[in-house]
């Protein structure tokens, strides 16, 4: 870890303005807002040294969410949430706006990459047992964030009001009607009546740009606050607990621990990583490289592949085959497997609902102190089955849809 003088130099380099007038302004603002202190708190923190590249996924998620907000704001300048003009406005953006197609493409590919990165981040957290005491709430907020991003994905897919969007809206709002007891009521609320129409699009738009982000942003703040409060856990390879050393030796690092370690209450063997590194510049550097690579990937995909815009919505068509977004393929396939109509609620609500609840409750289901994956088969084995199940379902769905 760096000493105080190193920190001061780094902070000075970061915060020193380029000219005297700016320095005066900066000092004036800093005296009132405490920017230097904030930067210290934000940038200087001990993080586990080993496995650092795996810990970049969280910050990459944050950067891509920021990218989604920015590209979304640009799209709002042109998009008109009306059944008669939504498609037209996006068609104008795609064909007549200089950078419209790229921005729209980045919003789409950003969503795809975001889901992948969040998924990987969750897998990393799960495998390393980072959800354990005292980080249970980090995990719970993370799972809720993932579900919210899924919600943003599906509502976003409905907005272009092309054939794909229209039939996605039809299917999604129809599936809602199978919710036991409240189904038709919920469907009417979303659709704004019995049929999909202008009100449906307006409400979906409101959910996409207001309701879900209004839940997402505060949760991100809470997630980051909790991360800072308890520190990055990393993986079992950083801890003495994994090596089953005597209590006395395991407790020794506690004496020399740097903030935010030890996170309290913690299992002694996993309270303080053996070898620490600076968040800035070491971890920030790695985070920046991964985030930049992902943003570059999103940009390249936006330019090369772009974002499809099918023909305008046509409720009278008899030939269009609706296909779900790739991240809903397992759920789509699950529906097909239920042989009778009354069972659809099992595939659409019971199983996904149960799976989401179990996912949220993971920290309370696995209360053993072990962090190594092979010492936690009670969770790793069902999780592996679930992952295999999701992959197989997605593959089977692709095969089925390809042959429709």
């Amino acid at each position, binding site marked *: 870890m760096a000493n105080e003088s190193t920190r001061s130099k780094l902070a000075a380099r970061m915060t020193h303005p380029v000219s005297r007038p700016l320095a005066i302004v900066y000092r004036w603002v800093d005296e009132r807002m405490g920017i230097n202190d904030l930067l210290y708190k934000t940038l200087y923190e001990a993080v586990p040294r080993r496995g650092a590249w795996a810990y970049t996924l969280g910050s990459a998620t944050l950067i891509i969410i920021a990218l989604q907000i920015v590209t979304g704001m640009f799209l709002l300048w042109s998009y008109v949430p009306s059944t008669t003009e939504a498609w037209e406005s996006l068609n104008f953006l795609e064909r007549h706006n200089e950078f419209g197609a790229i921005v729209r493409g980045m919003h789409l590919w950003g969503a795809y990459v975001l889901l992948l990165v969040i998924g990987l981040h969750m897998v990393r957290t799960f495998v390393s047992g980072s959800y354990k005491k005292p980080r249970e709430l980090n995990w719970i907020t993370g799972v809720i964030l993932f579900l919210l991003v899924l919600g943003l994905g599906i509502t976003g897919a409905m907005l272009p009001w092309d054939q794909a969007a229209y039939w996605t809206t039809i299917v999604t709002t129809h599936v809602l009607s199978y919710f036991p007891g409240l189904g038709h009521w919920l469907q009417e609320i979303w659709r704004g009546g019995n049929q999909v129409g202008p009100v449906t699009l307006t409400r979906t738009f409101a959910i996409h740009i207001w309701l879900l982000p209004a839940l997402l942003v505060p949760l991100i703040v809470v997630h980051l606050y909790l991360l800072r409060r308890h520190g990055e856990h990393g993986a079992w390879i950083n801890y003495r607990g994994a090596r089953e050393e005597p209590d006395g030796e395991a407790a020794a690092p506690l004496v020399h621990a740097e903030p935010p370690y030890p996170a309290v209450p913690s299992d002694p063997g996993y309270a303080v990583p053996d070898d620490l590194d600076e968040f800035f510049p070491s971890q920030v550097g790695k985070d920046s490289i991964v985030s930049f690579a992902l943003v570059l990937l999103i940009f390249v995909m936006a330019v090369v592949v772009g974002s499809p815009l099918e023909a305008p919505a046509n409720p009278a068509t008899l030939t269009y085959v609706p296909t779900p977004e790739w991240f809903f393929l397992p759920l789509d*396939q699950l529906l*097909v*497997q239920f*042989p*009778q109509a009354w069972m659809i609620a099992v595939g659409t609500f019971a199983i996904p609902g149960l799976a989401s609840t179990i996912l949220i409750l993971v920290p309370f289901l696995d209360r053993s102190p072990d962090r190594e994956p*092979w*010492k*936690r*088969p*009670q969770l790793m*084995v*069902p999780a592996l*089955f679930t992952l*295999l*199940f999701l992959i*197989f379902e997605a*593959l*089977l769905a*692709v*095969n*089925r849809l*390809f*042959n429709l």
Partner: protein
Amino acid sequence: MRDLLTLAPHLTPVSISTGVAVALVGVLMLLHIQFAGFQQGGAMLVTLFDFLGMVRKDERQTRFAHGMVKSMAIAFAFGGALAIFAVMILFTGLWSHFWVKLLRIMFWPLVIEAGAFALEIMALYTLYVGWERLGRVRPLRIGLGLVLTIDLFVQMLMINVVASYMLTPVGAFNLPLLLINPTLIPLEVHRLIGNVAFVGALIAIVAGVRMLRARTPEQRSYADWMGAVGAATAISFTALQPLVGWEYAKEIQLHAYASWYTMMLGGLSVAFLFQMFLLGLILTAGIFYFWRRVRTGGLRSPTLALCAVLSLGAWLLGSTPASLAWSYEQVFAANANVPIWNGGLLIPFGQMIPWKLTALVTFTFVSITAVTVFLREVSRDHLRWGEARRHQALALITMGVAVSLIMALMGFIRENGRGPFLITNHMLVNQQQNFRPPANNGPALGGIPAGPSLILGG
């Protein structure tokens, strides 16, 4: 040479009865499937255990991976010879019409298949011969194992393209549709899982036999550990089969209804019922092993006991026939389409929905639970390797033999479900032996021109 050619019939197949041809090819291919399955599942386990051995510094896992490579190299010699014999002698000699047509349609998948076969030889024998030397750079050896795994995955995918096309050739005018036909992915997933389960079962058999014949504590300990690995692998992967098998059957129902009917309600329904019986036997024997092995370790596990009871119940339910006849046609013919207690031939508890479906769902959840509980006890070091009893070894052998049988049976059902076709709706089995090529460019496959234009997607 010229004399020989003039003496040869005009490229007609060797004159032999259809029944004998079917039997010869059938037996050979069922054997080949077992060898190929062993290679494919084995490569995955070699790579996994070599990796685990490195990460966990566990010599036993490395030894296991090495043992698998040696077994694969020996098995490959025989399995490869079978495949070559099948292609060079049986297909070309007995079913040349079918083989030439198939080769013209499936040219590229079969070329890739042959290429993957060549790569398999190089990768497998390099691992076999250079295991110790490659061990000096462990990631390299693991990487080579990964190459072999991917290669065998591609190899199986290509042959599944052919096999699934023969069952559901729905996109014959469009090359991508022809390759990615409705049953390709379900078959691929089904066999991928099945192959790993099969290897686990073979390991369990070997471990069971070794347990019974072990003379030293070290031999007993290793065999006991190997048995646990085999059983956990076999049961874990078999647990997924009901779901994937259901999906596979659903696609067959949608795209090759006659085959589906034959398998589920027609002449092969008895074979299918026997398959349910074997599935129940595999899972019940495996779960029984888990339960008793944990008990031998001095632990009482009510969860495992409950799993064993539930599995037994699901086995009985799943194996109950739907009627007291070979097929539904016989039930209808006898005008006995009512339950047995009303004087008919139907047994309502043998119906697929909801009873067999309930049994399948129970199998899945019970198996996953049992594997999880067993591995939890293993991870807590509650089992001392080498303590396994004789009846546990017998349970492992029973489970392994049942998996081997079900592999052969599934191949038999799949290949005979198409009957009387070799390629559904396009080519009959009995067209092979009495086929005479016409003078023009060759007959169409049921009206489908099978030539280079099709291969190129034209």
